[in-house]
Structures are given as C-alpha cells and as structure tokens.
C-alpha cells in the first residue's frame, strides 16, 4: 500500500519531457539544503531532472523496501541506510556526506529560562522530543542517557518538523532537534556540552535498481564535492 | 363575554391576502366554508398564533391575542386553544395517551375524554396503528382535555372515508354540543357546515363573500361558488329501504342500504322543471310554485315552494323556451339516483 502511494507520487512528479528524471529520496531534515543542491546539480547537468521525495527516513525506508523506484537515497540515520544496504538494494557502499548535531531548541527569548539538558527532567516545563524510533528521537535519548537525565517529555512528535513547529509557537518550552533545524527555524539553540553531544551521520547511496546509474553516481559525487559540502554547511551541517 | 373576535388582514409570504371579520359568541359554532386555497388554514394559523396578523385584532373575551404589533402578539402556547388540525397531526413518536396528555397534567380529564369518545381501550396504541376515525377522536380528546377557551376544527372529517365519516360526525356533533366556549369549524364540505354550524361564513380567495345562517346561505347564495357548493337542497327524512318519509310527502332514493333519520341532498341541477305533468310515472314528481328567479349569467336558479322547498338550476335558454316566471306553477321531478342520503 505504502509502495503504491510512492509510485503514484513519483510517477506524477517526473513527467516533464525527455530529460532523465533522477529520483532522490532524502530525509526531511535535508529539505532546504537539497533544494539548493538540486538547482546547482541541474545547472551542471542540464539533461538530468532531479525529483526530490522528502519524508522521514524511516518512511522512505518503507517505500524503498516496498519496491518504490528510487535512484538515490539520502538518510538521516546510519541504521536505516544499513537496513537498505543489507537488503541488497544499494549500489556500491554508502558514503557519509554530512553530520548533524543534536541541540536544545527553545522559543525566541527562551521564556522558561531553559539552561541545559538537566531541565528535561523538569515536570513543570512543557518538553518535546522526537518519537523514540525516529533518528532525532534516538539521538536525543542517547544524549539524555549519556547525561544521566530521566526526561519527562509532554509529547513525542512523529518528526522533527512538527516538534519544531510546537517550539516555534511557544507551546513547548524546549525540545531536542538538529542544529540544522535551529538554524532554519525561528527558535534559539542551546548547544549541549561536548561530552553529551551526539552526532547524526547522514549516509547516502545510489540504489542498485536505479534506472539512471550514471546520473545517480554523479549526484552522490556532487553532494560529496566541495560545492555540495559548501551548500550543506550553509544550512548547519558539519562536513564529515 | 368570552366570544372570539377576529377582524384582521394579513399577507402571506407568497403574496396571498387574507381579510376576515367575524365574531363567534360562546356556545355558538361558526363554520368557515371555502374551497381549497381560499385561506382557511391561514385563518387557523392566525387564530392559533402560528402566524401574525398585519392589521386588526384577534381577541377571545377580554384577552387580545394579536393586534398587528409585536408587543401585542401572544404566542401560541399562551393562547390556550383547543385545535384539531387538518390531518390531526398526532405526534408519531407518542402513543395515544401520550398524545392526549401532551398539553396537560390533568390525567383525570384525559381519562374522561378517552372514555366519552369511546377510545379508552386505545390508550397504549401507537398512533400509526389508528384508523382515520380513531385518530380524529384522539385529536379531539387531545384538544378538549386541556379545557380550552375555544375549539377550532380544521377539516375534521375530510381525511375519513364515507362510512366512518357518518359515525365520526355524530361524535363531533355531540362534542360541539357540550363545549361551552366559541367553536370554529373549518371545512370545504357544505353538508358538514350546514349540519354542525349555527353561522356559516363563505371564504373565497382570502375574503368572506357571504355570511349568514346555513338556511340563508343555502337559499340565497350570493356568489357562483356559494350557489354551487352551498346551494344544495337539504331535507330531513326518515329512510326505510329506499323510501324517504318527509312527513307531508315522500321521495324515493336508489340508496336502499340506509334506514333511520337521514339528511337528503339533492343538487339543484338534478331537479328537472316541466310546464306539464311529465310523461310516464317517475315517482319523485311534485307540483310547486316559482317564488323567486335568480340569474347568475350562465345559469338560473328557481326557488320553488310546494310540499317541500326546492331549488332548481337550469340554463337561461331553458327558462326562455319554457316561458317561466315568478308565480308560475310548474312540475318538478328528480331521478331516484340523484337523491343522496346521509344518516344523521
């Protein structure tokens, strides 16, 4: 069912002319950065039309495992990429193209005066995390475990965007999101002490069933190139 | 003292204008007789308070219900009227007893009316299972057990078939007889109006075109409609297998099924006029004198006196060829199949 929906979505998105339509499934935290990369790549490769399919990494995994036609997969989670790789769906080896740090995000002006990770144990604050199974939730919990804080979240959001929305609206006093989200959103960031800081590795790979293997490899190479890395850095990603 | 006074005009949302002026004293029954679309139900709505009047006044005794102003308007629930609506409007989700006691906590009165109307054994019955006659009695009990200040019946018999109509009409006459306040009967059936009412107002196209006793309307119809519907000859008789005893004379009817006291209806058009005794031996033949000639343009009515008073209707051409005028002696005849009877 999920696969069917993806097929329909991708099919409808790539019906312009004789250009090669390169279908790139990317984690939603990459939305803005990959939007810019898409333009830059298409300028250099005018015969390729990059079609972005942006969603949570785990949802993208389900789509790919269900047989959705995808040329390149850029994941926010190493584990998820490994599952795709283990299924024999990756061409070559995945490359880590970016790192993303977990940070504390607070509404503008920090109305609840959150100072650090220990505040996540406070019952009197409204606190949000990502759901325990999505990458930003996994990383946030790893940081909490490392700091010995037993978190008292009021909501476990299904993805980092909806968590960010609630922080921006001032409904949550604090949440743990990626450094890139702090940069993109209307929130203030509080960096975690380096000993608790957890870093997400973003791997990407051309997929084995790609209809355009050369273009897929070219896209991966472009992201890893200095031009691609410069774009990612502007959005808060760290070069690996 | 506690009579109904209704002198008002109102314009319906569809532009129809109703204008009436009538008084019903306590104890009296007024029939508002008119064809469909004449404005009879609008009159019911105005008196009931389901619509407001534009000008004039509706009052019952000392209480004014509506004087055309928003301040003077008394809502329906405060008017305390007993109304039997057209189609009875029994609440379909309630049984007979629940319908009857809908507007009262006086269960003793409800019991009494259920008993007097002979529907005591129906009290638990869903109203969907009632016959037309039973439903009418339930509606009547529902209106009466609140001891209302006025009784208004909107087409109380028109939903019934001919056989139950006779029985129900008798019950209705009893109920009207006993009710002390003013009574209004809304009907399109002249027989009903003449049998049950003291005064008849003929309503046509929103206006009362004639008012008077049933006798006056019947004998002196002022409009073609009144002449047509209200001008029927009505006689009281005793029926016995087709023979009708009128006291001083007798008639024959084709209807041999009814015995006992009846109302005889003969339409004026069914009465034939002859200058000489008709040939053969039709049994319903009698001599009469022309008392009055009324010309309605395309037809002429002759009011005759003889053993019975009888109105006959013929074409102007027939009058001319027969050369008949007031004071002339004529022969009248009626076929037995044109003599209709209704048990009283």
């Amino acid at each position, binding site marked *: 069912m999920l696969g069917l929906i993806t097929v329909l979505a991708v099919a409808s998105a790539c019906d312009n002319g004789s250009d090669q339509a390169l279908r790139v499934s990317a984690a939603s935290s990459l939305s803005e950065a990959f939007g810019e990369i898409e333009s830059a790549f298409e300028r250099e490769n005018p015969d390729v039309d990059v079609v972005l399919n942006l969603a949570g990494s785990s949802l993208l995994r*389900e789509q790919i495992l269900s047989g959705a036609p995808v040329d390149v997969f850029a994941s926010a989670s190493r584990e998820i990429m490994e599952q795709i790789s283990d299924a024999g769906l990756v061409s070559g080896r995945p490359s880590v193209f970016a790192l993303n740090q977990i940070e504390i995000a607070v509404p503008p002006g920090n109305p609840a005066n959150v100072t650090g990770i220990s505040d996540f144990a406070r019952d009197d604050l409204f606190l949000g995390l990502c759901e325990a199974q999505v990458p930003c939730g996994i990383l946030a919990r790893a940081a909490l475990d490392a700091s010995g804080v037993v978190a008292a979240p009021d909501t476990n*959001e*299904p993805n980092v965007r*909806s968590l960010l929305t609630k922080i921006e609206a001032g409904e949550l006093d604090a949440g743990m999101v990626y450094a890139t989200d702090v940069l993109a959103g209307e929130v203030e960031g509080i960096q975690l002490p380096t000993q608790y800081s957890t870093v997400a590795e973003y791997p990407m790979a051309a997929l084995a069933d790609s209809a355009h293997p050369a273009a897929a490899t070219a896209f991966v190479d472009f992201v890893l190139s200095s031009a691609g890395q410069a774009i990612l850095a502007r959005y808060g990603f760290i070069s690996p | 003292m506690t009579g109904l006074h209704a002198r008002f005009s109102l314009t319906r949302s569809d532009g129809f204008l109703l204008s009436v002026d009538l008084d019903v004293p306590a104890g009296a029954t007024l029939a508002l007789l008119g064809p469909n679309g004449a404005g009879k139900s609008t009159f019911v709505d105005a008196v*009931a*308070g*389901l619509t407001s009047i534009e000008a004039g006044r509706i009052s019952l005794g000392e209480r004014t219900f509506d004087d055309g102003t928003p301040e003077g308007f008394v809502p329906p629930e405060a008017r305390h009227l007993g109304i039997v609506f057209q*189609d009875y409007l029994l609440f379909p989700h309630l049984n007979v007893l629940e319908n009857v006691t809908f*507007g009262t906590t006086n269960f003793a009165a409800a019991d009494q009316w259920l008993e007097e109307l002979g529907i005591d054994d129906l009290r638990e019955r869903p109203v969907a299972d009632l016959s037309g006659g039973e439903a009418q009695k339930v509606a009547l009990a529902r209106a009466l057990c*609140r001891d209302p200040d006025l009784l208004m019946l909107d087409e109380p018999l028109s939903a019934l078939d001919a056989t139950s109509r006779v029985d129900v009409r008798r019950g209705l006459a009893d109920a009207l007889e006993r009710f002390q306040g003013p009574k209004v009967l809304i009907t399109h059936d002249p027989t009903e109006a003449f049998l049950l009412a003291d005064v008849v107002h003929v309503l046509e196209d929103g206006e009362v075109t004639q008012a008077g006793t049933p006798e006056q309307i019947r004998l002196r119809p002022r409009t073609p409609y009144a002449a047509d519907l209200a001008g029927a000859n009505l006689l009281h008789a005793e029926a016995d297998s087709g023979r009708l005893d009128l006291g001083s004379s007798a008639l024959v009817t084709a209807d041999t099924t009814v015995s006992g006291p009846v109302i005889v209806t003969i339409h004026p058009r069914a009465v034939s006029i002859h200058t000489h005794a008709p040939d053969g031996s039709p049994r319903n033949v009698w001599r009469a004198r022309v008392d009055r000639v009324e010309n309605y343009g395309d037809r002429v009515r002759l009011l005759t006196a003889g053993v019975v008073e009888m109105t006959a209707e013929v074409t102007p051409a027939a009058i001319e060829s027969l050369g008949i005028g007031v004071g002339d002696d004529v022969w009248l005849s009626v076929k037995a199949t044109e003599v209709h009877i209704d048990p009283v």
Partner: protein
Amino acid sequence: MRSSLPRWAVAIAIVAVALFVIPLVGLIATTPWAEFGSMLASDLVLDALALSAVASVSAVLISAVLGIPLAWLLARAEFRGKALVRGLVLLPLVVPPIVGGAALLFALGRAGIIGGPLYEATGIVLPFSIWGVIIAATFVSMPFLVITVEAALRNIDRRYEGAAASLGATKSEVFRRVTLPMIRPSLVAGLVLTWARAVGEFGATIAFAGNLQGETQTLPLAVFVALETDRDAAVAISLVMVGLALAVLVGLRDRWLAR
C-alpha cells in the same frame, strides 16, 4: 434476495464495496495472528484504546450539546451571514486535519490568542492533555452532526411543531418533546458518523495535542508511530480499530436506525 435493480448498477455497487473490502483483506492478510493477543494486551494498545474511547465519546457529547442548537439555528432562524456560518461549519471537512490542528494550536495553545489569556487566568493548558485530544476530535467531527441534523430539521413537517405549541409547549419544549424525537433516525445517524470520525481522527490531534502514550496517544497515533517501527503492531492495532468501528456501526444501525 433477488435484486430488482439493473445489472450495471449492481456491478458498480460491487466495485464500490470492493474498494472498502480490499484494504481490509490486506490488513487481515498481514496480521500476525500468533502474537495478536499479546500485542493487544500491551500497555501501549490498552492506553490508546482507553484514550480513544474516552475522547471519541466526549467529542460526540460536546458535538451534540453545541452542534444541535447550531443546526436548529441554521435550519430555522433567518439572520445575516447565515451562508458564511454554514461555510465555516463545513470548513473542518475541507481543511486538512493537520492544518486544522495547527490552527487550533495557534489559537488555543498556551501561547495562542485565546489559549494565552486562558492560561494566564486559570493555568489551564489544552495541548498535551486529553482536553486537546477531545477538542481536536470535536473540531473535525462536529460538522457531520450539524449537517445531518440541519437537513433533518428542514425535512420534517413543521405543522407538528405548531400543533405542539398550540397545546401549550414553549419553543424549547417543542424542540425537546416533538422536533428531536421526530428527527431521531437522522440524529442517531449523525451521532454515529460523528463518533466514527472522532475515533479515526489523526492529523488535528497530533498537531494540536501532541503524542504521548497514556496522555494524548490515541489509536490512530499509536498506529502511525508503530507503522514506522513495528509494522506488525501497526497492523494489529489497525485491525482492532476496524473491528471496534464495525461492531459499533453495524450494532447501532440495527438497533437504532431500523425503525
């Protein structure tokens, strides 16, 4: 039972039914029957089930209290801007629920234009609580009740209301004792639809109330979370929802709508 309808109508109807049945077959086929029982007995499912039950029934009750008078007004009163009000009532049907939920958050949240003063005055916070779940469910489901009841009110013979008034009943009494009982089949149908929509509500809930097991995580939210991690659990919870809904809808239909 012999059908008296033309064959093409029956054929199309079968296609329509298939559209409903096929996903159900898919769900049943992928259900992990061996672990089904233990999955359903888990805290996660039981918490979500209890929360869904309480929230959906509350949403129906609030919809009835607020929606029936609104339907009455729309059906019977003449006022300026009536068309606009009717359009506003339909809005939750048109707007994606997640947008509706975000709008609720901006209005009724702790920092919202109405929720802010409410919080200042009383300390009550609607999001991240069962109240948020109930409000979100009411927001998306009440239109079904208003539409159904308004249509029913327009269709009944109003002379019965006049008869009741002439028997001494005030407008409120007429509505309670005559109008409502006379529209009962439509009213029940509307309440059932409202409940069904409330039970299935997802988008507005997650956007407004958040997602926390035992607090705001209803069955659809539990399914959504499970879908990303544990497909078997997602399928099992979905099947519970389908079974619950079918039982209620079929049961109520036979019991209340047959008359």
